[in-house]
């Protein structure tokens, strides 16, 4: 009697093919799209990465953090420090950003993991404030004033010259394209990595912990370690993203880099509106967020007012987010993780 296991569904196969095609188009985008599009896509991709990592934390790990700005800011400041103080190339300094975020994530976890639920949320927020206030004392990087990346550093960045030549664009545009490609790689790696995690036995364990922690422990799942790994991973990824975002902005200040609204509240909005606990949710969420911003941002406070009201409305209508609503109605999963056992006594007629 032999059994096989598969997670694919017909829909997911189509989705995979479409996804592959989409990825190729996205990779080739700089060859035919204007700079505006590239920048919009950069914004979408970086917000998507932040959203995926927050979703990993809150949606899969049950760790509702409102202190993600600590990792964005830390990653960004590490990039500036690496470039300005130690003369690193900006592209390699992005990695430094991820590592710096990881380094502060360790003591943060030590502290915050003693807290639960709402306490955890507030605790992470306070820690992020502590990091912000401490970084604001870092006088060589401008303290509370902030600082800008020297133009020489960004101009001579790796690959920029090559892109300039190959695509025949100005240096500023080449930098955008490089940043876009980096963001694309990061986003694909993030989605791929999270999908891989969810399909691994550790992903299964995460789901089990989410369903029933006590029972999960009783079958040998190390719930504490799972959470720690998730926390550190998302800190690292968030730090990388922070560094990349500020590489592109080229100017930093503590208030901007550690903004709870920009890097946590909007991210939370994206995930929850799209659908928490799914990979599809943040993708849908970031598109909605971007659409709203492009349509309404010029209306100043009316834009933010609308955003706030929309958050309330969607939470009341679709508590599991828009993707939750869609997949409930249609049973659609673009990233299926359910393992289906086939064969043996489960011959098709009995299935």
């Amino acid at each position: 009697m032999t059994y096989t296991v598969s997670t694919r569904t017909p829909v997911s196969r189509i989705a995979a093919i479409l996804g592959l095609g989409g990825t190729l188009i996205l990779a080739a985008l700089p060859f035919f799209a204007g700079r505006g599009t590239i920048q919009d896509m950069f914004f979408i991709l970086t917000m998507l990465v932040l959203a995926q990592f927050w979703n990993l934390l809150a949606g899969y790990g049950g760790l509702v953090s409102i202190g993600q700005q600590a990792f964005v800011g830390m990653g960004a400041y590490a990039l500036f420090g690496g470039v300005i103080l130690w003369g690193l190339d900006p592209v390699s300094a992005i990695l430094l950003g991820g590592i710096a975020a990881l380094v502060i994530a360790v003591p943060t976890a030590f502290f915050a993991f003693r807290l639960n639920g709402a306490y955890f949320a507030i605790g992470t927020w306070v820690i992020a404030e502590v990091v912000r206030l401490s970084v604001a004392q870092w006088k060589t990087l401008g303290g509370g004033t902030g600082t800008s990346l020297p133009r020489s550093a960004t101009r001579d960045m790796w690959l920029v010259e090559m892109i300039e030549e190959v695509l025949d664009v100005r240096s500023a545009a080449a930098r955008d394209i490089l940043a876009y490609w980096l963001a694309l790689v990061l986003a694909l790696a993030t989605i791929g990595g999270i999908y891989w995690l969810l399909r691994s036995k550790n992903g299964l364990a995460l789901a089990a912990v989410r369903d029933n922690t006590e029972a999960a422990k009783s079958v040998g799942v190390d719930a504490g370690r799972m959470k720690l790994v998730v926390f550190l991973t998302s800190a690292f990824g968030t730090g990388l993203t922070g560094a990349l975002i500020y590489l592109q902005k080229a100017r930093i200040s503590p208030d901007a880099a550690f903004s709870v609204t920009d890097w946590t509240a909007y991210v939370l909005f994206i995930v929850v509106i799209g659908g928490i606990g799914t990979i599809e949710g943040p993708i849908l969420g970031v598109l909605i967020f971007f659409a709203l911003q492009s349509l309404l941002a010029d209306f100043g406070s009316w834009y933010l007012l609308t955003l706030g009201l929309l958050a309330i409305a969607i939470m009341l209508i679709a508590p599991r987010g828009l993707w939750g609503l869609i997949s409930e109605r249609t049973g659609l999963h673009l990233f299926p993780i359910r393992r289906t056992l086939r064969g043996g006594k489960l011959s098709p007629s009995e299935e």
Partner: protein
Amino acid sequence: MSILSLQSVSKSFGALTVTDDVTFEVPQGQALGIIGPNGAGKSTLFNLITGNLTANSGTINFEGRDVTRTSAMDRCMAGIGRSFQIPQPFEKLTVYENLLVAATHGRRLGEAAVRDDCADILERTEMIRRANTPAGQLSLLERKRLELARAMATQPKLLLLDEIAGGLTEAECQSLIGTIRDIHAQGVTIIWIEHVLHALTSVVERLLVLDFGKVIGLGDPDAIMASREVQQIYLGIEV
């Protein structure tokens, strides 16, 4: 050698002492039954053995190692498997995935390595047809079977079963007895809490009676069942 030994183990919730100075040993390979009135502390005793609760005092040894303060996960890895009285399935996962969690994490193996084992356990517990059903949709009986199957998937040396026969029809009960005997025959030590006495006595070699958190009897099942005290306390029947 005894696989499990408890030395003066006590546990209380606030003012309520639920496990009161319990001492006993279970020899390797034995099947021990536990009976006692509702609220006697049977399930609590299980929770103490598995690490879901920590004892206030006393020591618990498993395979000669003191495990009193170790976590539920560590004890699972050491070889203690359990079913919950109130089934605790991972509701969003399918039956097969429920087993997969237990097998891959309880035994630190890869998914491919445990696939056939899991399927085999599902067959033996007659759950194979439900393999791809989310556990949240199971009926109570199926949930209880899943509890057993998931516990087996961790390949325990000591298996703790908490009221898995309640509510079964006689035929189902017999098949369950068969399954448990099977497991036992493979050398797994079993401790089984059960109110369905005929099922229990047809498997276990010794019986432990718990009342108000105290051990009030331990020995040969027939002798224990014959005692007047047990008849009165347990069956609530005036004899």
